[in-house]
C-alpha cells in the first residue's frame, strides 16, 4: 500500500471512465429509428382502417418528410415549433431531476407569455436592446413565480405538487380570460379577448426573413440553445444542481447532507417555471405577437412528453423537442398535401413515444438489429 507508484496506478484506474456500451448505443440510436418506423406503420394502419386509400397514405408520408425536413421552410417551421417545446421541456426535466412532478407548465407558459406581452406594450418606448430582453425576462419571472406557488405550498405544507399544479393550470386559464377583458390589456378599439400587440422593439427578430419573408424562425432559437447549455450547466456543473439531483434521488440523504429541502423545492420549481415562462414569452414575442385565450395550445402538456422522452437530459430534450417540432410541421404539410386530418399526427406522436420509451418493446418486436443479451441481463 505504501508503494507510491502502485497507489498512483490505482488512482489512475479509478479515474478511468468506462466506455459507452453497445446497449447504450442501441438505446440512443437504433431504438428511436425503429420507433419512428413502427409508429408510421401503425399510423398507416389507422388510415387504412378509416378508409383512406393507399395513394393518399403514400402522399401523406412524403408530405410528412417534406414538411419537417424537406426544405428551408420546413426546417424553419420545425425549429420554430421546437423552441417553446424545448424551453418548457427543459424546465420540466429539471423539475423531474429534483423529484418534482410538475404538471403545471401549461399555466406557467400561459402566464409567462401574458406577462411578456404586457411588459412589452407597457414599455413600448424602450429601445429594442432593452425591451426585448426585459420582456423575455418578465415572462421568465412571472412563470417562475407562478410555479413557485406550488413549490412553496409543497415545502410549507406538503401539498402534492401534482394536485396544485393541475389546479394552477386551470386557474391560469380563467385568469387569462379575465385579464383579456381588462381595458388596459385588451386590444385598442376591439371588444374581442385579444391583448394589445407586442411592439416591434419587443419582438424576437426573425432570422431568415431576408431569404423569404414567410420563414418564421426567430431569435428564440438562440434563447433555446442558451437554455439547453444553461440547464445542462445547472444540473451537472453547479452546486444548486447537485442539490436538485440529490433531493430528487434521495430526499433523506439530501437532508442529511445539509441541503434545505424546502429551499430546493421552491428553487427547482421556480427555475422550471421560469423556463416554461420563457417558452410562453418566446412564443408570443417570436410567433404570435399577442396573447389570446389558450394561446399556449398545450405546449406545456406536450413538453411533459418531450422532457420524459429526452430522459430529463438537456440534450435529450433538445432532440425530443426537435422531433416533436418536426412532427408538428410535417403534420401540417400532410393536411395541406394529402388532406389527411391533423389529428392523425397526435396518434403517430403517441406511438413514437411509446416505442422510444419502451426499448424492451422495440426489442421484442424487432429481435434482429440488437445484440443478443445474456440471460438475466443487467437491466436495472
Amino acid at each position, binding site marked *: 500500500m505504501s508503494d507510491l507508484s502502485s497507489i498512483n496506478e490505482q488512482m489512475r484506474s479509478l479515474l478511468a471512465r468506462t466506455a459507452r456500451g453497445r446497449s447504450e448505443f442501441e438505446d440512443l440510436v437504433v431504438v428511436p429509428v425503429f420507433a419512428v418506423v413502427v409508429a408510421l406503420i401503425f399510423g398507416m394502419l389507422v388510415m387504412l382502417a*378509416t378508409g383512406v386509400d393507399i395513394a393518399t397514405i403514400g402522399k401523406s408520408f412524403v408530405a410528412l418528410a417534406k414538411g419537417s425536413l424537406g426544405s428551408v421552410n420546413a426546417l424553419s417551421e420545425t425549429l420554430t415549433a421546437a423552441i417553446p417545446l424545448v424551453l418548457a421541456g427543459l424546465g420540466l426535466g429539471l423539475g423531474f431531476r429534483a423529484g418534482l412532478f410538475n404538471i403545471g407548465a401549461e399555466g406557467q407558459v400561459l402566464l409567462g407569455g401574458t406577462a411578456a406581452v404586457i411588459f412589452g406594450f407597457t414599455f413600448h418606448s424602450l429601445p429594442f436592446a432593452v425591451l426585448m430582453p426585459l420582456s423575455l425576462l418578465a415572462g421568465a419571472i412571472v412563470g417562475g413565480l407562478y410555479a413557485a406557488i406550488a413549490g412553496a405550498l409543497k415545502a410549507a*405544507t406538503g401539498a402534492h405538487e*401534482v*394536485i396544485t399544479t393541475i389546479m394552477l393550470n*386551470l386557474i391560469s386559464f380563467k385568469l387569462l380570460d379575465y385579464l383579456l377583458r381588462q381595458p388596459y390589456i385588451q386590444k385598442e378599439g376591439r371588444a374581442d379577448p385579444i391583448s394589445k400587440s407586442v411592439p416591434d422593439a419587443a419582438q424576437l427578430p426573425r432570422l431568415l426573413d431576408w431569404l423569404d419573408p414567410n420563414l418564421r424562425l426567430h431569435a428564440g432559437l438562440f434563447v433555446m440553445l442558451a437554455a439547453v447549455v444553461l440547464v445542462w450547466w445547472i444540473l451537472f456543473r453547479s452546486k444548486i444542481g447537485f442539490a436538485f439531483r440529490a433531493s430528487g434521488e434521495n430526499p433523506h440523504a439530501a437532508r442529511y447532507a445539509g441541503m434545505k429541502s424546502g429551499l430546493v423545492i421552491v428553487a427547482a420549481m421556480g427555475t422550471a417555471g421560469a423556463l416554461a415562462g420563457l417558452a410562453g414569452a418566446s412564443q408570443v414575442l417570436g410567433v404570435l405577437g399577442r396573447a389570446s385565450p389558450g394561446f399556449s395550445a398545450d405546449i406545456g*402538456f406536450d413538453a411533459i412528453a418531450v422532457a420524459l422522452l429526452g430522459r430529463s437530459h438537456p440534450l435529450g430534450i433538445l432532440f425530443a423537442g426537435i422531433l416533436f417540432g418536426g412532427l408538428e410541421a410535417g403534420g401540417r404539410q400532410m393536411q395541406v398535401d394529402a388532406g389527411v386530418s391533423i389529428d392523425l399526427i397526435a396518434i403517430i406522436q*403517441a406511438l413514437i413515444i411509446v416505442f422510444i*420509451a*419502451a426499448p424492451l418493446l422495440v426489442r421484442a418486436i424487432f429481435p434482429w438489429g440488437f445484440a443478443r443479451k445474456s440471460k438475466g441481463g443487467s437491466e436495472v
Partner: protein
Amino acid sequence: MSAVTTDTTSEKIATGKARQARIVGGVLIALALLVLFVLDVGAGQVATFKLSRPRDAIVLGDLVVPGQPFNLVAAALLAFLGVRQFLRGGVRWTSISLGVGLAILVMAFLVWATADKSFSLTGMLQATMVRAVPIALGGLAGVLCERVAVVNIAIEGMLLAGAFTGALIGSLLGGWGGLVAAVLVGGSFGLILAALVVTFRMDQIIAGVVINLFVLGLTSYVSSQVFAEVRSLNNAPVFRAWKIPLLGDIPVIGPMLFNQNLFVYGALILVAVATYYLFHTKGGLRARAVGEHPRAADTLGVDVYWTRYVHVTLGGMVAGFGGAWFTLGSVGRFDENMTGGRGFIGLAAMIFGRWHPVGALSAALIFGFADSLQQKLALLNTPIPSEFLAMAPYIATIIVVAGLIGKARAPAADGKPYVKE
C-alpha cells in the same frame, strides 16, 4: 409517552404541529374578520334557499335565513374557533377546526351572495352528485391502479376512450351494448398500460401521457373522419334517471342520492365494492401488499406482475365506465376532447382522498359542490367576475390540500417498476 416531570409542562416546547395549529388559528381569525367586514349583509335582508322544486312529491317550504344575524353568528363562531386554536393549539383539532371553519365560511358566503335573492338548494345538491360522478370514477380507477403501485396518468385518456366507445357502440347496439363496450375498451387501455409498464418496463408517467395523446388523437381523428359524415353513428341513447320509490321523494337528499341515473348508482356501488374489496378481502390484501412492498409479496408467492395486470385492467374498466357517463349518462353523443380534463381532476381527487375509494368519492363531491356552487353564484349577480367564480373549485382544492391533508402517504412502491431476477 414517558412521564414528563411537572417543570416540562410549564416550559414552551414548540413543535412543528403546534406552530401549524397556531397558523390555522390565525387564518380562522382572519376568516372571521372577512365574514364580519367583507361579507356583511344589510339589516333585514334575507337569503332564501329553495328546498323543493315545483314537481316534487313532498313540498317543503323555503329555507329563509336572516342574513345579518346569521353572518354575525358565523363570524363569532369563526373567531371562537380561531382564538381557541391560537391559544390552545390543540394539534388534534387543527384539521377539524379548519374544516369546520371553511364550511362556516362557505355558508356565510352563500348567505351573503343570496341576500334578498334565492336559489334551489336541492338542485345544487343534486348537481353536486352528478358533477362528482366522472371525477369519482376517475379517482377510483386511479386508486385501483396506484394501490398496486402503477401510477395512472392515463385516466383522462381512458375516460375519453370510454366516452367515445359508449357513443359509437351505443348508437349501434343501444345503451347497454355501448356501456359494456366502453367498459371493455377502458379495460383494454388498462391492459395496454399494464403491458407497457409491467412487461416492457416503460416509465409509468410516459406510458400514461402517451395513452392520453393516443386516445385524444384517435378519437378526434375518427370523430372528424367518421362521425361528421355518418351522424347516426354518434347518436346513442341516454340512460335516464331512475327514481328509487319512496327514497327518491325524501326532500333535499332524495333527488341527490335516489333520483339519478345508472352511473350515479354505479359509482356509489363501485366505491362501496372497491372499499370492501381492497380492505376486507384476500385479493385486496394482496393488491395492497404489491403496492407497498412488491418484493415482500413476491417472496410469499403473490404474483406481482399478474396482480398489477389485473388491477390496472380493472382500473381501466372503471375509467371506461366513467367515460361512458359522458355520452350514455349525459348527452348521448361524442365530441372531441369532451372529457375536458376531468381525468386529471380525478387524479387529484384520488390523492386528495388519500388513495381510498371513499376518500376519492368525497374529494369528487367537494369538486362537484364547488362546481355547482359556482354556477349558482353566477346566477346571483355577485360582484365577482365569472372567471373568478369558475376558479373557485380549484382554489378550494388547493386550500384544502394544503391545509387539511399535508403529507398524504402514497403506496410505498408507487410508480416504481418491479424487476424480478
